[in-house]
Structures are given as C-alpha cells and as structure tokens.
C-alpha cells in the first residue's frame, strides 16, 4: 500500500478557478497546484502535492480531472460553512493549499526527474508547462456589484480549469 511505482507516475500541474458563496461574502478562488498521477489497473489515481490534503481516482485522466475540480469545490464549500467570515475563510483555504508532506513532495520531484530523463512520457492530449511553474492560491473578496454571468462556475471551469503535464526538458 505504501509503494508507488515511479515508472508510471506523472507529475502534473493544474489550474482551478471558482467563486464560493460564504456567510455574507463572495470569494473568488484561483489556484495553480500540483498533483501526482499514478496509472493503476483500475484507473488513474491522483495524490495532491499542493494542496496535499486530497487524493482521488477515476477510470480515466479526464474523469480524474473532473473529480479533482469537484473535490476542491466541495472542500471550499465546507470551509465556507465552517468559518464565520471572509478573513477566516481565506486563511483556511490558504492553510489547506500550503499543507503537504515531504514524502509526496519527494515523489513529485522524482517523477519530474523521470520525465526529464526520458524514463516516463507524460500523458498525451494535455498541454505542457514547466515543472518550476510557481504554485499559488489567491482568495479575493468579490463585491456583488462586480459579479457577471461569466462568474458562474461552469463558465469559469470551461475557460480556466486545465491540467498540464511537465515538459521533458527543463527550462
């Protein structure tokens, strides 16, 4: 259970954008994160790196990406339920994003090295980006007056949510 086969591990980055309705506030959340995807007999499993507190799987990479979006949205909604206002919510999201563990960080770095060494080829059909791309979370208070139809979740996900494989060549 503790072993991950590095030969089939893909280091991936993802972007996520969503609006959460909290207790008396609207929050815009923009994430650029890292996950490690592992091919298994039953499908694709993802372990979160940043954020570290997530793990999920599905039969295909696309289905796993969809589950990743939904998982993040559900976690943020839970945070909104548990917190009393925007500042506490923002702090909770930031803590969640930055918490990780050294083993998963090490595995992500090893998977990047495996891609660069040509031992692993990243998944086809998704864009590439540099492994060193900065990860971040931005939580911004949004005024009701500034909300537009493009803030609806499905529009945001269609336009901004993406999964990226890392380039084989370092920058």
């Amino acid at each position: 259970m503790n072993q991950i086969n590095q030969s089939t591990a893909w280091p991936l980055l993802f972007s996520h954008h969503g609006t959460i309705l909290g207790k008396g506030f609207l929050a815009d959340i923009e994430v650029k994160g890292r996950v490690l995807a592992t091919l298994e007999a039953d499908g694709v499993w993802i372990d979160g790196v940043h954020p570290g507190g997530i793990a999920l799987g599905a039969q295909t990479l696309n289905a796993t990406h969809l589950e990743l979006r939904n998982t993040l949205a559900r976690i943020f909604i839970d945070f909104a339920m548990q917190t009393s206002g925007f500042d506490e919510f923002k702090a909770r999201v930031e803590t969640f994003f930055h918490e990780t563990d050294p083993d998963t960080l090490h595995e992500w770095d090893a998977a990047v090295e495996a891609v660069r060494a040509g031992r692993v080829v990243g998944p086809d059909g998704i864009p590439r980006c540099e492994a060193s791309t900065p990860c971040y979370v931005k939580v911004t208070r949004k005024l009701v007056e500034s909300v537009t139809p493009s803030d609806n979740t499905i529009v945001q996900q269609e336009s901004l949510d993406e999964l990226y494989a890392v380039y084989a060549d370092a920058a």
Partner: protein
Amino acid sequence: MSSFGLVPLKRLLEILKQCAPGHVWNATDHYYVVKFNGKTYPSLAKKDQIQGGQVRKMARHLGILECVIAHLGK
C-alpha cells in the same frame, strides 16, 4: 492494496485510535475531516468503505503512515 481497494470505516477508526491518539474527527457536509500533529486532512469520503489511496494519503499527510501500514498490511 491498490489505491482503489477499500478499507472499512470502522477499521479505519480503530487504526486512528492506535496511530493518532488524541486526533480530532469531524464530519462536514461533504467529507470526514481528521486533525492530528497540527495538520488537517479535510477530504475523506463519507462512506462505509474508504478507498485505500485516500487512507494512505491521509496517513502520510498526518505523519502516521508507518503505523497505519503496520495495522492494515500491504
């Protein structure tokens, strides 16, 4: 165990008593939340059987992986 294998919730709760004494267990609208060692794992599925990969990641996140493996086996 593959990531997609299942661990009964009751068994997981017994293991947490052994491996994470004093941990805090909460249920939110969507997930079970486990706090231990100053860290929070906020996304355990609210099901009677939890995927092995989630249990492994939670254990790693909370710094109790060796103990959980010792109880669950491979």
